[in-house]
């Protein structure tokens, strides 16, 4: 039964949003992901912004998908319950040149019909965001912009797709695709073979290689690295809105972001690198980021730093998204070069790819058994005492706190494991355990214990994020743990 109608390569937000758009129809859908969990590629190290819709003109595909994606986010959240807040976006100008650029972006925003977009005086900006430096000269306000937890959003998309019978296989790296008898035959490095009528290439940083595997277009993805720095939830710098500088060149600049869960994030950088696997942070970028962020919000301080990370955007020559049917091979949709605003655009990208597949001849027949939403489970940290006590009666593990910094219970960790997140990072991204100020020093050992109990596996087999990222190196007395 390895025969599918559509196979999507990549379980990041683009691939999963496509799966979610397709799973309402009577189709057999397969998602193949080379990492051990969803969102572990480009999606994971993302700024988590739902953009306002004024950075790009409507002549670009990414400009159009961004506007539509922003509109769809509210509806997606209602159905899938991932952390998302329309906190608003501010763009702050500090020089006369920047003010001139702000006016340009405002005009673009008006043309793009960004709801509520406002050209702001210094006074108005400071009234909207009191954390801003008093040196600000003026700027823009886009009330419909916001923040989202990109991995929770991706996990929710994956859950919805799976609920509607979509197959998602992890640890599967596509190595070849051959067009035979009007179907694609796909092989993975792990030795599986699947066939599918259509292929969607949403492989992020590796979209160029995947395209090559199928004999489709030749192009190159240039990783553009971005470093992000996370500040403690007690940081006085946390703004009420996302604060952007005025953009220059390829990058939207270093932002100060009030994340959905109460921390503050500053970043990212934008640096073209060669190695797609490179993920290191550097001292020089840390210093630059903090200097730029302090320029906008003076209370940003390295003293509040709890962690740093980096990830790469899959940039392409031409800078626009490349979402189109292949002109070289049949039944193959390219979804490549999806850098910023790829997260914002993703719900619209999913719809758009659905339309492209339809034009390519895929029959879309509504599935009457389609389930449009996921059940909501409130996390313990958001429950009142009464709610927590009531939850305890259903499952006592829900009032056993494992991660003290973020108030994550054993119940939530077991839930993550049972949903298939069996790496430390997978559990962390699903539950927030280890994301607080102690960065997992206290809870990692306890989580290993729960993992061992729930899966029956040895401590040695557990990894931080799959592959060879083993957390421990054996037992003291050789006895199986």
């Amino acid at each position, binding site marked *: 039964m390895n025969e599918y109608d559509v196979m999507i390569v990549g379980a990041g937000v683009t691939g999963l949003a496509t799966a979610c758009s397709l799973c309402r129809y009577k189709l057999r859908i397969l998602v193949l992901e080379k990492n051990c969990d969803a969102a572990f590629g480009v999606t994971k190290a993302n700024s988590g912004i739902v953009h306002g819709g004024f950075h790009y003109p409507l002549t670009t595909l990414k400009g159009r998908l961004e506007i539509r994606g922003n509109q769809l986010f509210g509806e997606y959240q209602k159905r899938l319950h991932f952390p998302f807040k329309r906190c608003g976006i501010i763009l702050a100008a500090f020089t006369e040149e920047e003010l001139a650029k702000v006016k340009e972006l405002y005009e673009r925003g008006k043309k793009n019909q960004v709801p509520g977009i406002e050209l702001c005086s210094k006074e108005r900006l400071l009234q909207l965001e009191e954390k801003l430096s008093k040196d600000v000269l003026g700027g823009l306000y886009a009330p419909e912009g916001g923040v989202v937890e990109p991995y929770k959003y991706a996990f929710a998309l994956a859950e919805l797709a799976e609920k509607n019978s979509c197959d998602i296989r992890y640890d599967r790296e596509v190595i070849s695709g051959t067009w035979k008898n009007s179907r694609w035959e796909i092989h993975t490095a792990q030795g599986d073979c699947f066939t599918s009528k259509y292929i969607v290439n949403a492989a992020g940083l590796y979209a160029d290689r995947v395209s090559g595997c199928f004999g489709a277009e030749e192009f190159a993805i240039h990783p553009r690295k971005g470093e992000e720095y996370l500040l403690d939830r007690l940081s006085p710098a946390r703004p009420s809105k996302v604060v952007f500088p005025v953009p220059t060149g390829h990058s939207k600049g270093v932002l100060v972001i009030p994340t959905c869960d109460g921390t503050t994030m500053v970043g990212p950088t934008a640096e073209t690198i060669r190695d797609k696997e490179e993920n290191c942070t550097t001292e020089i970028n840390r210093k630059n980021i903090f200097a730029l962020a302090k320029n906008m919000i003076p209370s940003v301080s390295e003293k509040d730093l709890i962690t740093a990370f980096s990830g790469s955007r899959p940039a392409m020559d031409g800078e626009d998204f490349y979402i189109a049917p292949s002109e070289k091979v049949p039944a193959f949709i390219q979804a490549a070069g999806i850098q910023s605003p790829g997260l914002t655009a993703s719900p619209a990208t999913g719809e758009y790819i659905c339309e492209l597949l339809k034009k390519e001849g895929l029959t879309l027949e509504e599935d009457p058994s389609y389930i449009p939403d996921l059940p909501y489970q409130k996390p313990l940290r958001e429950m009142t005492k*009464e709610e927590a006590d009531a939850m305890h009666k259903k499952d006592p593990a829900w009032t056993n706190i494992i991660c003290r910094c973020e108030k994550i219970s054993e119940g939530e960790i077991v839930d993550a494991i049972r949903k298939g997140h069996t790496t430390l990072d997978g559990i962390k991204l699903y539950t927030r355990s280890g994301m607080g100020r102690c960065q997992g020093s206290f809870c990692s050992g306890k989580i290993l214990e729960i993992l061992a109990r729930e899966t029956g596996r040895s401590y040695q087999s557990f990894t*931080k994020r799959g592959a060879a990222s083993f957390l421990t190196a054996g037992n003291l007395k050789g006895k199986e743990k």
Partner: protein
Amino acid sequence: MNILYYDCAVIGAGAAGLCAGARTAEKGLKTIIIDRESHPGGVLLQCIHNGFGLHYFKEQLTGPEYAGRVTANALASGAVLMMDSTVTEIRENGKEKLLTVYSGKDGVTLIHTKSVILAMGCRERCRGNLGIPGDRVAGIYTAGAAQKLLNMQGVLPGRTAVIAGSGDIGLIMARRLSWCGVDVKLVTEIMPYPAGLSRNIAQCLEDFNIPLRLSTSLTGIYGKDRVEYVTVAPIIDGKADHSKEEKIFCDTVLFSVGLIPENELSRSCGIKLHPVTNGPVTDSNSMTGIPGIFACGNVLHVHDLVDFVSREAETAADNCVQYIAGMDKEETENNIFPVSPEGDLRYCLPCSCKKGKDVCFYMRSSAVRRKARLTVSCSNTLLAEKILNYVKPAEMISLTLEGEKLCSFVPGSKISVTLSPVEE
């Protein structure tokens, strides 16, 4: 929801909490000691080496032995131990305090109590706090987390290690890992002097030929999945000299770069914290800014010896008992003398003291001195003096001042505690 009533609720069942709770219960207060772990003893349980108790029990004990004794004392005193339970909130409720406690066994419990003793201990600074560049790979642990993994869960964190920072737990772990066959390649310390106790440098590093590089910074951690190597560089003029950077191959990095009192609960109920210690500001009654809430042990300031923690806890407990006894009495007399640390002192606790009450000052030096003079004075009058040999930031200094000595001074006058170098 369960509702409980107590005279005294102690948060944390480590050395501080157990000693404080044993004392309040012994003196007749209905006492409960609450802890998130399954077994009482706190960090002592993972400290399987010896060297504990020389001052307090007058004999050499291992961490679990010390924990066993103070636990037995607490149980014998009649204090109730509530384990596997996390206090999520402290609220003032008129004169009493209201604690919210979550546990897997009992769900949510509300504890009404006349007094609270904070004894939550401290946590370790981690890689992220320091902003150390490089990759986010597996194999990076704080020294204490690795110690727990090894000693309590029986799991080796790795095979070849570099330890960043020369704090005591890092030193102890260097030796512990060596015993397990782990190749400990290096301990780095950014300061020109070690952060840990001298005896640990001798017994844990020198005896095992583990090199310690002072004035050296860990400048990066690299690898694809697991740590593959770190870079270290000498510190010259206060900055890492990257031109002299060196690669050291290892699969594990432990951090022992300082401890931070865990005051999330204290902060959430509005207790004022000390900018240097990161613990609550307390007066000579061990009391925080909120009447009826006391603090002792590592939650107040980081100690190097558990023996001092136990003593500090008993003092806090005695003060708590007195507070309850005089609870309805209005404190009318203005009898407070603010305490100011001066000279080489980084800090001095308590932050104030009272006439007629003996007070034990605990303090730390910010500098290494072969010989130093410690003085306590008020309005230019010398009240106490002590000559100290081999003063270092790693070793806490204490001094007791008799309360009578303050009788002739006007309340409100500043008490200066000064540490100054002595020229030889």
